[in-house]
């Protein structure tokens, strides 16, 4: 199927007005790594929450499975909403607001789950993470891709995305297991997630707006698009 699609390398890029600066190269690399890293950690902690639900709350496999599938559905819905919203309002609001919500709400939610040990609390925290950790993703991907020059975009994006995922993907679950083993308290997990969320929030606040609609632009065609199936 992919054989029939046209190439996009060299497609139209916006030319920005002088003085409306987007993220610099250094900013997008450092802050992009931090934002992807924070998102990755929260993602894996959420995966761990499923294990927590099974062992601590004694949930049946069916309930855990339902929670997982509804979580996946949430990824899809949140991504679509996030994509439309970041085209409308720019990338910054979509990066800042979800991170702020997570930082403010994770600890109280974890406390609630810890005290009540209820199914409602477990689902609520899954829903919270599912929505607010994924609604920012399109804005983040676009911000990184559009801030990189087209001639280095494919490799640049791949590296900024893959390094934190590869590094933290395997280690986060081990760290969380160790953390809970040492402290014996799920509140430690809440503090850890709040800290990671705060790093993401700071990175989001430091990243300048990159959306063309918010910076003022005129289109330039760098090259013609290769026609389909050429």
């Amino acid at each position: 199927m992919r054989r029939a699609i046209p190439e996009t390398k060299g497609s139209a890029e916006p030319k920005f007005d002088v003085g409306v600066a987007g993220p610099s190269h250094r900013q997008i690399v450092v802050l992009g790594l931090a934002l992807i890293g924070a998102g990755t950690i929260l993602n894996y902690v959420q995966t761990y929450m499923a294990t927590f639900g099974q062992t601590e709350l004694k949930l049946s496999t069916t309930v855990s499975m339902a929670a997982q599938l509804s979580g996946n559905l949430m990824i899809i819905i949140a991504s679509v909403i996030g994509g439309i919203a970041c085209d409308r309002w720019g990338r910054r609001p979509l990066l800042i607001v979800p991170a702020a919500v997570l930082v403010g709400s994770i600890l109280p939610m974890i406390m609630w789950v810890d005290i009540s040990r209820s199914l409602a609390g477990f689902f609520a925290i899954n829903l919270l993470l599912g929505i607010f950790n994924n609604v920012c993703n399109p804005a983040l991907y676009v911000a990184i891709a559009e801030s990189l020059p087209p001639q280095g975009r494919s490799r640049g994006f791949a590296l900024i995305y893959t390094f934190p995922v590869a590094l933290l993907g395997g280690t986060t679950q081990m760290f969380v297991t160790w953390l809970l083993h040492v402290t014996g308290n799920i509140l430690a997990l809440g503090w850890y997630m709040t800290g990671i969320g705060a790093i993401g929030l700071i990175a989001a606040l430091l990243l300048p707006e990159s959306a063309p609609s918010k910076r003022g632009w005129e289109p330039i065609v760098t090259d013609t698009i290769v026609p389909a199936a050429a």
Partner: protein
Amino acid sequence: MRYPARKGLAMEHWVDGQLSKAQARKCIFAATLGCGLEFYDFLTFAFFAIQIGHTFFPSSNAYLSLMGSLAVFGTGFIGRPIGAFVLGGYGDRVGRKPAMMLSMAMMGMAIAALALTPGYATIGIAAPIIAVLARFVQGFALGGEVGSATTYMVEAGGIARRGRSASCQGVCQGIALSLGASVGLTLSALLSPADLTSFGWRIAFVARRIDCAVRDLDAPGHSRDQR
């Protein structure tokens, strides 16, 4: 033509040289589908880590077998940044499309190698070596895929619709996660543990190849002479 800042950009602000909306939609769909399939492969491996460990690693000890399997899983993660650098660079030099095609072909080969290689009991030490190599190629392909496919989506969607097209990345991962888990659970429910270890996990990988072949034939606007 000049577009002022702080003004909502609607679809009528289409730029010469960009893809039409219908074209863009088709292209993004193709990129999303491919991306989802690659994630499915990567996740299916994680789901069947224990069974794959039993098949390829010479151990009567289940723990050592699992560790071997996890080592293979780790190799996939090491392959990712290397693939990001090499295939990402290929996407910048040659094009996003060739990079996507290449990473898909590599992923397909790695999966076929893994699904078709006999276990340690049959071919000895070659089995774990092939498994580790296949996993490395798989990670390499996935690392390159993310860069070229996301770049492709962002560029194909049009300047005012970049967010919408990039959201397909999340959609494809969500679908792949659900599909991977469903196939895994269905096989676990239908087959006995012994059957699952001896051939069940291979079905999950082969199912994806058949599915992919069918979709390739059914692809709209994809006539024979275009190949």
